[in-house]
């Protein structure tokens, strides 16, 4: 397995370079970012030229990329336009988004999988139909609608939660935003688990387990669930990356100063350093999450071997 992990890690290198180069080029295509820094007034040419020099924008793109990557390997992600180090922005925003993601993933795992198991075992019963309709509704409603409605009802009308999250963003304040963020994926997890469970509950090994007289909960958790979870784990694994990068809508609604907020600002201000830095880290998160998912397969199904 060690060799497998190393091979996978080596494969990440070209993906990493390709992704960062693409982002770098995309941000560059948008034009000269200095023009936006002076507001509705034009920057005076001398200052603009010096700012370009300071941020290395006066050099050809390939050279900018080379310098940038060189710096990244020494841990220097450059400086954002407001004078803050990008690493400083990361150290404040990533923990917040990671907490939000963890809550979202926990919701997906706990609620999604339990609902999936319940409905998968009771196909066609009222509860199955009810959950199916519910998940359909959740998938159909965009996140910002769910978010704004929950914020208004729970935050403004009933005052159960704070309508915006404070800068330090502790776990308890992130519960509702996490649920909003998880909602669509949660519905998918429910449906995936349901189908998978429904399929496998007719399998021979389940029948054998029942025939052996094993208690019902043991049949479900050890035999049925373990085999049914592979597609679900794949989905949740890729969702980690998607949630972290895609939290922008939820973060805006609940005023969470996480990765989405920084990326949004970076793009608006065309701050190459911020955007490329954050996307680089997100790419890494995505790659690692995928690796972890692949390794988890073997935990769930020991027949899967890595070479």
């Amino acid at each position, binding site marked *: 397995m060690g060799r497998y992990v190393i091979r996978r890690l080596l494969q990440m290198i070209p993906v990493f370079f390709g992704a960062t180069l693409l982002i770098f080029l995309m941000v560059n295509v948008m034009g000269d970012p200095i023009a936006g820094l002076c507001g509705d007034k034009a920057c005076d040419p001398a200052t603009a030229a010096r700012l370009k020099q300071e941020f290395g924008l006066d050099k050809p793109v390939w050279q900018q990329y080379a310098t940038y990557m060189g710096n990244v390997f020494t841990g220097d992600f450059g400086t954002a336009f407001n004078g803050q180090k990008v690493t400083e922005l990361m150290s404040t925003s990533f*923990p917040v988004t990671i907490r939000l993601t963890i809550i979202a993933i926990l919701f997906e795992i706990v609620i999604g999988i339990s609902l999936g198991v319940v409905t998968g075992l009771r196909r066609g019963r009222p509860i199955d139909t009810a959950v199916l309709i519910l998940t359909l509704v959740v998938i159909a409603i965009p996140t910002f609608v769910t978010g704004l409605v929950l914020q208004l009802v729970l935050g403004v009308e009933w005052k159960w939660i704070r309508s915006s999250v404070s800068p330090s963003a502790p776990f308890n304040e992130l519960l509702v935003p996490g649920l909003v963020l998880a909602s669509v994926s949660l519905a998918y997890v429910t449906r995936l688990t349901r189908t998978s469970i429904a399929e496998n509950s007719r399998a021979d090994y389940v029948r054998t387990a029942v025939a052996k007289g094993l208690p019902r909960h043991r049949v479900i958790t050890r035999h049925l669930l373990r085999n049914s979870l592979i597609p679900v784990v794949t989905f949740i694994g890729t969702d980690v990356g998607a949630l972290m990068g895609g939290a922008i809508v939820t973060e805006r609604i609940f005023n969470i100063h996480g990765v989405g907020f920084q990326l949004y600002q970076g793009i608006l201000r065309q701050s190459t350093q911020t955007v490329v830095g954050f996307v680089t880290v997100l790419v890494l998160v995505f790659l690692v999450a995928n690796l972890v998912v692949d390794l988890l397969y073997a935990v769930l199904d020991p027949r899967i071997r890595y070479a």
Partner: protein
Amino acid sequence: MRGATHAKWTACAVVVALAATACGGGDSGGGSGASGIVSSSWGDPQNPLEPANTNEVQGGKVLDMLFRGLVRYDPKTGAAKNMVAEKIDTTDSTNFTVTVKDGWTFSNGEKVTAKSFVDAWNYGANLKHNQKNAYFFGYIDGYDKVHPDKGDPTADTLSGLKVTGDRTFTVKLNQKFSTWPDTLGYAAFAPLPKAFFDNHSAWLSKPVGNGPYTVNSYTKGSKLEMRKWDAYPGEDKAQNGGVDLKVYTDNNTAYTDLTAGNLDLVDDVPASQLKNVKSDLGDRYINTPAGIIQTLAFPFYDDAWNTPGAVKVRKGLSMAINRAQITDTIFQKTRTPATDWTSPVLGADGGYKDGLCGDACKYDPAGAKKLIQEGGGIPGGQVKISYNADTGSHKEWVDAICNSVNNALGNDKACVGNPVGTFADFRNQITQNKMSGPFRAGWQMDYPLIQNFLQPLYYTNASSNDGKWTNAQFDKLVNEANAETDKAKAVDLFQQAEGVLRDQMGAIPLWYQNGSAGYSTRLSNVALNPFSVPVYNEIKVS
């Protein structure tokens, strides 16, 4: 046992992830509970917080709390009054002698002297420091040496600035500018303590000024806590215990927080909430004029827009816009149809002249159609109005203008909006002279003078003359006005220059923008100054 090893690996990964997040926890940041503290919405400032480097409202409001300059604009009338300056004397409108009042200090105890100003201005003007407001010092003699258009500076200090005593310094300008002292209330002219120069990065993380507030803590990108400075020597002491500025990712969320009781003050009511604001807040909603005007600028570098007949086309377009309807329906009366190129906050004495634009700014679809036809029709057959689509609600009003123009001309395709993805790209196209039709232009005044509404925008090659409009008669009148020492006469000359602008329709004035704010029941005595910034130090908390 293979499975077990895998499980261990995965468990380790999860533990690492959890550990990484734990460090960010900490306290839950009080909210609006503390006594006497105003919590207010804020936007993340675009540039580092230093006087000569802050050119937008969000950073500007902090500087307004932290600093007091030589001159301060009256929060109600906008009139320039001496603050730290005891007197600013001149006999020839070129050489000025400034005397600083005794007894002023920075909040770290250091005295505010003539040197505090001269050092700060020299720093701001110097090209080496990349200060975005450097051009404010452009009227001072020697600016071309410390801030040359090309190459490195050949001097470190402005030759026009001389410290003549502990509390006095002289300024020599490179042109006559009688109202120059009135410009000194702009934040770029604030004094700086020694700490700024000694340890710049430490100062930036916790700025020290001479205003009524001090910085308690500053978490960049999320919160700035300011507290009343008890030993503040000025007369405009803070009436509250302090102000917490909280960064909001979206002004809709800030408004929601205000209605939920988590926030005291929102100084930018989102357009989408204007319909509810009366029922939500009642008379705790403020909607007062600010020194902001919005216009449509034209690319005069494009030959199609610079023909002799194009004047009629531009006037025709102006007449085709139903300003009253757009300000009522889209902006819910938070803007007022413009009838000149300045702002009502200047007042009649300051140079605002209601109706100066005349018939050209009155809605007259029939007349518009006739004028545009006389002028040879719209260049290329279609007007494309460019705007940046990333912020504000520019799309709505641009579409409304086009609708109005299309109706007037009886042609569905006479006018279309041309959205540009980001503000930076929009500015980029403007500075590179790439606009092919009219484009959105806005001007927020730096100081309440009619000069500020005309010279930077329409003088030949001026810093914000985005359309590159040029007119010798206009330039001449502006020069004469600047040289005129009698204020009333100067204003009159500026208005004559504005008349030239009107006759040529150098830009179409659209509307004056109001400042809008809403506040909670805890607050009283809330007002917006002419810059649409809340007068924080006068807010009372019950």
